[in-house]
């Protein structure tokens, strides 16, 4: 082994939420380790406050400097702390989205990770801080913690994300088993093309996880609101529609122009779900000038990134192919100007759309304000259904952990490729499995060998 490698032990800084995951007015996050000073400086841009004094500070997002929350922080200096290490306690407002946002930022800092069950106590022990542990009830707390996690784990069986992750974990283990099979048993009856087969299946898995991560941006949905883009040809009544929607809503948050003139954004509170409506530039066949072109490009980007697409169609005009091409799996159709045609004409339009498989349709007259309530109702049902795990699913901390784990897993998998030595690919697959370990249980070589011996006839 390389002699110059420094074996000095340098352990991670850990954090945990000290509050329960339900709703509460204030949530407390405790951070312990060598990086706490740095974390404070990065998040607040301020000098460290005096130890053991409360301080009100703004916490800033690391990436874009927006404010995460106004928080009360207390700094405890080593060694007179629970763990014996430096500890930073942050008290934030109780919304899940704030907690989510803060955790995401903490995870961006190198060497910082979420604490494992009992890890604060373990550190207290290793740093000879047992006096705290002697206090009554600590053991009960730890026991409760594991019990709580057990319950959580049981709950999650029905939860969307964790089920999916478990299935992927199973597939990955099998792929690794087959991959290891061809490494460890070169002279046995392992199919010759197994390496290629595993690699191609990994490519599929990468695509699935990538799609899942991009579709299931639950954290983003909660923090920023559900993004709804209003799309359609020019002059179909998009702007009238957004005006009607904004009028209906009593709690208008803001109405601002986008960075270009062509995307208008309105934030609306729909039965306590924050929803952001974007009015996009009308899509046209021919483009007159450069400004219009820019507007359309901008609109295309908004359409691509939105969670829901409201496609507005003018029922007085014929349906064009190019507008129907905009329909995708996140589209709700809005037929506008129903006050201008008779019922018979309307039925024929509906029939035509139904024949094309388009069934999620609302009818409005944006000008007169008819049907807007129904539209908003439909939208609410749609959002609640599609993002049900966000609104009714796992607690926010668990979900963030799942997403972080899945992202890590994804990043390791992406390193796998044909040109690399197989033992390095195997290492990447193993690391990707390990990153799911917190959720699915530790990677166990015996389970892997079970698969190898079941699927291949080993033993010459």
């Amino acid at each position, binding site marked *: *082994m390389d002699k110059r490698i420094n074996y000095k*032990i340098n352990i991670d800084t850990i954090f945990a939420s000290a509050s329960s995951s339900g709703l509460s007015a204030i949530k407390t996050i405790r951070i312990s380790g060598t990086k706490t000073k740095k974390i404070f400086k990065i998040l607040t841009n301020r000098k460290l406050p005096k130890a053991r004094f409360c301080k009100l500070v703004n916490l800033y997002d690391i990436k874009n400097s927006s404010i995460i929350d106004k928080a009360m922080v207390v700094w405890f200096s080593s060694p007179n702390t629970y763990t014996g290490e430096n500890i930073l306690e942050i008290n934030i407002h109780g919304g899940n989205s704030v907690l989510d946002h803060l955790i995401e930022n903490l995870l961006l800092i190198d060497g910082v990770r979420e604490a*494992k069950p009992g890890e604060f106590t373990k550190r207290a022990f290793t740093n000879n801080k047992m006096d705290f542990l002697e206090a009554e009830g600590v*053991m009960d707390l730890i026991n409760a913690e594991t019990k709580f996690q057990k319950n959580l784990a049981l709950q999650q069986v029905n939860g969307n994300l964790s089920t999916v992750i478990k299935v992927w974990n199973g597939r990955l283990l099998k792929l690794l088993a087959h991959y290891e099979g061809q490494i460890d048993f070169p002279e046995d*009856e392992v199919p010759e093309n197994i390496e290629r087969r595993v690699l191609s299946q990994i490519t599929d898995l990468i695509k699935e996880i990538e799609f899942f991560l991009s579709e299931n941006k639950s954290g983003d949905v909660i923090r920023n609101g559900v993004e709804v883009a209003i799309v359609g040809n020019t002059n179909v009544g998009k702007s009238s529609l957004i005006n009607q929607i904004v009028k209906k809503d009593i709690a208008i948050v803001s109405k601002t122009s986008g960075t270009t003139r062509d995307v208008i954004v309105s934030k609306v509170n729909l039965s306590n779900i924050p929803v952001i409506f974007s009015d996009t530039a009308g899509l046209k066949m021919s483009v007159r000038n450069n400004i219009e072109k820019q507007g359309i490009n901008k609109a295309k980007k908004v359409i691509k990134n939105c969670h829901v697409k409201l496609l507005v169609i003018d029922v007085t005009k014929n349906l064009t192919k190019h507008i129907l091409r905009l329909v995708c799996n996140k589209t709700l159709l809005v037929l506008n100007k129903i006050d201008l045609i008779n019922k018979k004409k309307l039925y024929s339009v509906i029939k035509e759309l139904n024949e094309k498989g388009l069934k999620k349709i609302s009818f409005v007259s944006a000008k007169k304000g008819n049907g807007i309530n129904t539209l908003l109702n439909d939208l609410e049902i749609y959002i609640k259904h599609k993002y049900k795990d966000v609104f009714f699913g796992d607690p926010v901390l668990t979900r963030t952990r799942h997403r972080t784990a899945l992202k890590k897993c994804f990043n390791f998998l992406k390193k796998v490729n044909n040109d690399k030595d197989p033992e390095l690919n195997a290492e990447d697959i193993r690391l990707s499995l390990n990153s799911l370990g917190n959720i699915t249980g530790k990677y166990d070589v015996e389970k892997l060998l079970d698969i190898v011996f079941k699927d291949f*006839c080993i033993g010459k």
Partner: protein
Amino acid sequence: MRKNNVSRGTNKVIVVGGGHAGCEAAAAASRIGCKTLLITNNKNKIGEMSCNPSIGGLGKGHLVREIDALDGIIARAIDESGIQFRMLNASKGPAVRGLRAQADRILYKKAIKNILSKEKNLKIIEDEVIDLDIKNNSICGVILSKKKIVPCETIVLTTGTFLNGIIHIGNETIPAGRVGEKATYGLSKTFKKYNFKLGRMKTGTPPRIDQNSINYKNLKKQDSDKKIIPFSFMNKSIKVKQIPCYITYTNKKTHKIIEKNIAKSAIYSGNIKSIGPRYCPSIEDKIVKFKDKNQHHIFLEPEGLNSNVIYPNGVSTSLPKKIQENFIRSIIGLEDAKITQYGYAIEYDYVDPLQLSNTLETNKINNLYLAGQINGTTGYEEAAAQGIIAGINAALKVKKGTEFVLSRSEAYIGVLIDDLVNKGVTEPYRMFTSRAEYRLLLRSDNADLRLTPKGIKIGCINKDRKEKFNKKQALLEKIDIKYKKNTFTPNNLLKYGIKINLDGKKRNIFDLLVFKDINRKELENIWPEIKKIPNDIFDELETRSVYRGYVERQLQDIKDLKKDEELKIPKNLNYKKIPNLTKEVLEKLNYVKPRNLGEITRISGVTPAAVINILRFINRKKRKWAV
């Protein structure tokens, strides 16, 4: 050495058994400087290969190199007796290449005997050990066949498959340790008397075939590698003549014969109840479990240069003799095969290895070490690896030295023993590279760099190896420093015709070798001085470069492991006094007796809460002692 020990006789370490574990243990104890006595039932069977005549392979080859790095004997013996050397996975990266050699059984035994005869502190006698002389749960000596007591300080027991061994061929059952050798019963009783938990395992061998009765005409030939790499660090080349193996296949007819008679096989008739290894199934198992396969390959391995016996690797069986003959003769090339010895399955007792510590000393009896198949493993290499560790520790105990334990992060030997004593076995344990979580670090090509310095420290390395190793290490460091400084920018390289990304990064020659399309030859054309670097040193530096990113990550993991291992658990900790431990956890801990935090966390069923409880208890005790 203490004077009052003289009364115990001259032998300090006694090794029982002359198989692969026993030979390695005896040689190691002797190298360290302890008077050692090896007791075997039959001197002629010392170094016997009772199963297939080959050594090494994936994982196993790694073990051989590691034993060699501690100056063990298995690598040197196979280098003097190997008749077909092959590097498995040669097209894959260095961490998963495995050297394997077919052996001439006679030459191998000769080589082992020759090496052992040169050990100055070693004496070998022929006798049967019927019991152990134990007082106050400590070893005092062994008791031989005529009730003769031979005193000693430590014992390494390596009885292989001889404990209550029973051979099965069809309906026949013969008590035996190997074909033609009687089993051992006395020691099984000894273990029972001291409440050791014993288990039963099964393994098998194929029938042997007379070479002259085989028709090789239509069979695929497999030659030795053109460029042979020896196992031992001490050897530069192999002098033994190389001969080929041949490959043939079972067919539908073979499978039909076996299927029809499956009930007559000892495994399927219910005669054998114990577990056999999944990676070494009998031909009966292969046909029952993989019904969709129309053929299974068989390697026809010669047992030696002057031997007529062929070992058909792949058809181990416990079917009746007549049926063995029938199915063998249904195979292409074996139509007229003459069986010289029938295949059989053997059942034997093993001692649950959870009752051992990492030095392979038993938890129940002081100074008693167990190594090899008795601990539930299989394979010569696995046995030898345990033998060398048990032998070293048995000798160090006599010399009052500190224990010699290898961690999972340091050696495959460490993985093997950690698995055995903390996870236990459910089938005969065999090493695979996938068992080693630090596989990229634990390469067979750097076994010497990893382990020889440790061996030098405890005094188990002979002078010639020590000198050779120190020379290599010095040269390696010199070259490493020299060529690390020697860097080139992409623009620089372009002048020599090497095209890489113009990223401005300075690279040394080993960084350049990370690129798949750049090889050593090309670089030699540009910088002729590289030619002077010896191959092993060049390869080591190149591998370090290729693996760098991955190895750095593994080293990070190792730091966590080390921290847990540094937290020692007192040897005689009374777990009963620790509050709130469940009965299951309590039983597990008392049985396994973990020695550090890392081991506790690897025992199945021990919860994080239990771990905290234990830590808390130990710490309180520590403070009391301090007062």
